[in-house]
């Protein structure tokens, strides 16, 4: 079982290595996100009058803290996008190259195939996201934002990156699988997959408006909610991914 799952993971990675553009994507998008977050944290407090954001924001430091607070959710985007792109490309490629039927004629189980695909997208996605977070924090400290950063590196932050992030990237992957099972080509699958980013934007919006405080308990509950949705959707995905429907309906 493990051997078959790892076989899928290693093959996916070999495929990625043979397509330098996917590696570029894996590295460049996170770097852009990190650079953007750093840039905003640097430029906004410099040029924006804190007073416009209301009475609680009294100085530039408080304004920076407000921006830095968005960062955990910003980081969520990274694994979600990476998992998503790999999921859709991975499955669309199987369809286009007509490898699914030969694959399904081997002893591999459907769920093993899906598990392999999930791991192959989610592992690099999470590694990159964690590396981006570390990079961001390191540069933040180097820029002298230590006091503000230490106030965001809380239990919530760690729950967010270690639990919520994997849950969201799994959701992203599953939706990618479902999307690509309906899509006729890679482009259509990508368009469908972009839909996945919306719930994350929703979370960011909620965070930005400050209507909801993300306490550790709430983050935990949110993660569990995402995991529950994951489980429900995964069942649907496995069914969609049934041998019969792949071979006879995925045209």
């Amino acid at each position, binding site marked *: 079982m493990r*051997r*078959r799952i790892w*076989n899928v993971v290693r*093959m996916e990675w*070999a*495929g990625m290595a*043979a*397509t330098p553009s996917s590696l570029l994507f894996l590295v460049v998008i996170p770097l852009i996100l990190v650079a953007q977050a750093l840039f905003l944290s640097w430029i906004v407090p410099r040029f924006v009058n804190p007073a416009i954001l209301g009475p609680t924001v009294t100085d530039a430091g408080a304004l920076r803290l407000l921006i830095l607070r968005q960062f955990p959710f910003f980081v969520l985007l990274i694994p979600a996008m990476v998992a998503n792109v790999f999921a859709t490309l991975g499955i669309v*490629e199987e369809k286009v*190259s*007509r*490898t699914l*039927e*030969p*694959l*399904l*004629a*081997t*002893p*591999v*189980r459907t769920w093993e195939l899906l598990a392999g695909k999930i791991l192959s997208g989610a592992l690099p996605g999470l590694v990159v996201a964690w590396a981006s977070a570390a990079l961001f924090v390191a540069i933040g400290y180097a820029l002298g934002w230590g006091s503000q950063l230490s106030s965001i590196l809380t239990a919530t932050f760690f729950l967010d990156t270690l639990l919520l992030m994997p849950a969201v990237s799994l959701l992203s992957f599953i939706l990618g699988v479902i999307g690509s099972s309906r899509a006729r080509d890679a482009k259509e699958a990508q368009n469908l997959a972009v839909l996945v980013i919306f719930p994350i934007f929703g979370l960011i919006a909620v965070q930005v408006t400050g209507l909801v405080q993300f306490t550790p308990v709430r983050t935990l509950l949110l993660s569990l909610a995402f995991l529950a949705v994951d489980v429900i959707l995964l069942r649907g995905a496995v069914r969609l991914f049934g*041998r*019969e429907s792949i*071979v*006879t309906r995925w045209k």
Partner: protein
Amino acid sequence: MIDHVVISTEGLSKRFGDRVAVDALTVAVRAGEIVGLLGPNGAGKTTTLRMLAGIIAPSAGRAVVDGRNPASEPERVHESIGFLTESPGFYERLSAERNLAYFAAFYEGVDAQVAAARELARLGLADRARDKVGTFSKGMKQRLALARVLLHEPRILFLDEPTAGLDPEAARNLRELIVSLRERGCTILLSTHNLSEAEELSDRIAVFRTRLLAIDTPKALRERQFERRLRVRLADGVEPSLAALREEPYVREARAEGDGVLVVLLADPDSDRPRLVSRIVQAGGRILEVREDERPLEDAYLSLVREEES
């Protein structure tokens, strides 16, 4: 062991919505046999092979492959079969070797690298092992696809149009390979449109069009579909012999064809043949040749399929 049945179906049926693709197929294939599945486009050959390989589930009836039901235990069945799909694909950006090693690693107890190298050599692709599959010609891909189904040395093979798209020499090599696999004890069910190929390879041919129309040896199929006529070539005029033969009770029909050829239908084409020869000689005919009027398998096939149509 010879009569040991390894593939059997009972009332195996598949419908897609209202369309019946396979209707109540009942067959048994013995170990070591090559059975050719012959039928027009859309006859349900691919659908049948997919059901046997546990890729799609039958709507009714059941199949047993190597003692197991492919619908309920597909993965167990996959351990012992090799299925060459109708349009086999590869990861084109990766090498032939990497592609095969990937598929091989799904089987228990198979050393993926060793199996990949062995099959590449067997199919004559060893020198292209490291090339990307995307650079392969259609025929090379077809050979690679066959290498892929042999990785775990299965005892049962389902081959869906194995020689489609191959040049005559490659097709011949592949047929030789199929025969050599049978010699190693493989049981093979192959679908094809190519009648001479079916005849050359198959121990038995199943003529199939949604329903099973006939299953028998190529020779028996021809004979069943057509009465066996004898062609007798004479050195001179046929008229005296023809008149004499028409008097004989065991001659059911006799006519002249062209110059010097008699076409005769006997009650029993084997045991009446010596009598026929001596009667012609008696009537003064000088016989140059007596042979059976062989109708090609194609005629038998077309007549079966057309009977079904009407």
